[in-house]
């Protein structure tokens, strides 16, 4: 019996794979669409009113109808415009899925104008830290070395000495700082987002905050004098490299020496 036109077993696998890719692709596209923002209502509304509307649509389900907080989200009364600006600009809020911690998401779900509106609304609820001015986070003349000292006193115990981030309890984490913008950094210190403590301008004055920002920026831009960095995470990644690449090379050399030449 001839089996010359036997279907290759690869065909089934390929079809299945293709179907999975197609479904996954459609899903990814469908869910990445921005949440449809209702058109600006007829007639002009103030920034605070716009912010309140956006808040009710996108935030009140967790933070309560009057931002008083609830089971799923803390109160926003008194957190200030800076907190809203930080959380929403970095895409942490609205929180995409339940989990130990809200990760930063790029791009954020709202545009800059909407974020300002929401920030204005929250600021109107009670006094809180304001969005820092460009002058406040202008780190151009700041002393990088002093910033390093302050970073190591206040920041490295969570964010790691090279700003690579660190583990907190129960799956939470202090994020990697390599993509952080100066305004974000200022706001984070000012408002103490999620698990991060608050470092108000009374605790760390603006001058010092600039120095810390300068240091973090220096960390981001720093070349690696020693070669490939292995993640700047310390001895663990060095050991991983040793145990894989280095051991493989050395044993390969030893085997090469031993095998008989052809």
């Amino acid at each position: 019996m001839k089996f010359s036109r036997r279907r290759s077993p690869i065909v089934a696998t390929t079809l299945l794979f293709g179907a999975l890719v197609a479904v996954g692709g459609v899903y990814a596209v469908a869910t990445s669409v921005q949440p449809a923002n209702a058109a600006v209502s007829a007639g002009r509304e103030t920034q605070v009113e716009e912010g309140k509307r956006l808040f009710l649509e996108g935030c009140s389900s967790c933070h309560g109808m009057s931002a008083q907080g609830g089971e799923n989200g803390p109160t926003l009364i008194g957190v200030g415009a800076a907190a809203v600006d930080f959380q929403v600009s970095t895409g942490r809020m609205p929180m995409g899925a339940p989990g130990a911690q809200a990760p930063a998401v790029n791009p954020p779900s709202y545009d800059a104008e909407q974020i300002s509106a929401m920030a204005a609304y929250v600021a109107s609820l009670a006094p809180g830290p304001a969005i820092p001015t460009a002058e406040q986070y202008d780190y151009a003349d700041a002393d990088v070395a002093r910033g390093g000292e302050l970073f190591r006193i206040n920041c490295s115990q969570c964010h790691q000495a090279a700003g690579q981030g660190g583990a907190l309890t129960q799956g939470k984490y202090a994020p990697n700082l390599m993509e952080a913008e100066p305004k974000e950094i200022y706001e984070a210190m000012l408002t103490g987002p999620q698990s991060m403590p608050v470092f108000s301008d009374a605790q760390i004055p603006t001058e010092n905050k600039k120095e810390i920002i300068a240091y973090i920026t220096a960390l981001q831009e720093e070349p690696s004098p020693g070669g490939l960095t292995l993640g700047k995470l310390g001895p663990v990644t060095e050991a991983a490299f040793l145990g894989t690449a280095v051991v493989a090379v050395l044993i390969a050399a030893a085997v090469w020496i031993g095998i008989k030449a052809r």
Partner: protein
Amino acid sequence: MSDLTTQGHDSHAGDGHGHEVAPARPGYSPVADIPHSPRATDTDPRMARRAERQVAAMFVLSMLFVVLFVVAYVAIDKTTIVYIPVMGEVNFSQVALGFTLGAAVFLIGAGAIQWAKKLMPDVEVVQERHDMASPKDDTNLAAANYERGKEESGFARYTIIRRTLIGALALFPIPLIIMLKDLWVPGPLEQGKSPAQILSTTLWRKGSRIVSDGTYLPVKATDLPVGGLISAVPEDLREVEEIEGNLNARGKAAIILVRMQPDQIRSQQGEGWDYQGILAYSKICTHVGCPIALYEQRTHHLLCPCHQSTFDLADAGNVIFGPAARNMPQLPIGVDEEGFLIAMSDFEQPIGPSFWERA
């Protein structure tokens, strides 16, 4: 030792597997009587010459890399940065020196190995082992000499000599050990105190002003909002460090200040040790002494990065996870007339890791 001389090994051309077996030569171990197939370089002179050229090329390349190393050392400025794919921006001098040195040395080795593999004989030779134990005669001779020596020394006979010798030898190391005592010379403030006593006190006193670490500015209660964290030290720390010339005082006196809503404080280590919701805790972990300042604002948990001991600062600093066995010592605080935060006394338990004498 006869294991190196020829042992009547028949040299026969061909051993049934189609190749030559070399005869044993003086000083050369006999060839092992196992099949051996020739290499390309054994049978084909062209391949042999090619192998020779390969080895020579490796050595020449090595020399070339040495030259490149010297050029790199002299010509490349130590601060120059260069971009290399995968590695990113790296120091040019470092990478160039490393690569050239590595290649130069590696190629010597590779050349030597290639020489051995391709051109030196790869015929296995065999050498006999001998028992490690000495021949009977030697053992008997040793025993006999020992007996004679023992008898002549009189060690067994002269009991007093033997005992006093042992005594002297046992005692003589003592001076060497005793002189290690001054590995630690107590300072003027440490005179007459045991290590346990010294470990049990810090720089904090009633009225010591609390200053922020790094800026050394005193702290007002209003400076610290709820959820805030300040790493702090006593005001006189810098002065003490100047005088003592070390960081010992800092290692014991470092504290953290945190603030929570007063109703969130479930318990403390002493009545009223907080000030309007501001709590002061030691910054040194009670497990094995790492500084600990990872404060989770919402849960009020303090996490140590070294071995993950976790303390609940809203609950008298009690341990809630990890290997630490004791709670984080709390420092009682208040304010002075100007409204700056001060300590009300020293810690009431030794800070940092446990030790034997710690009750």
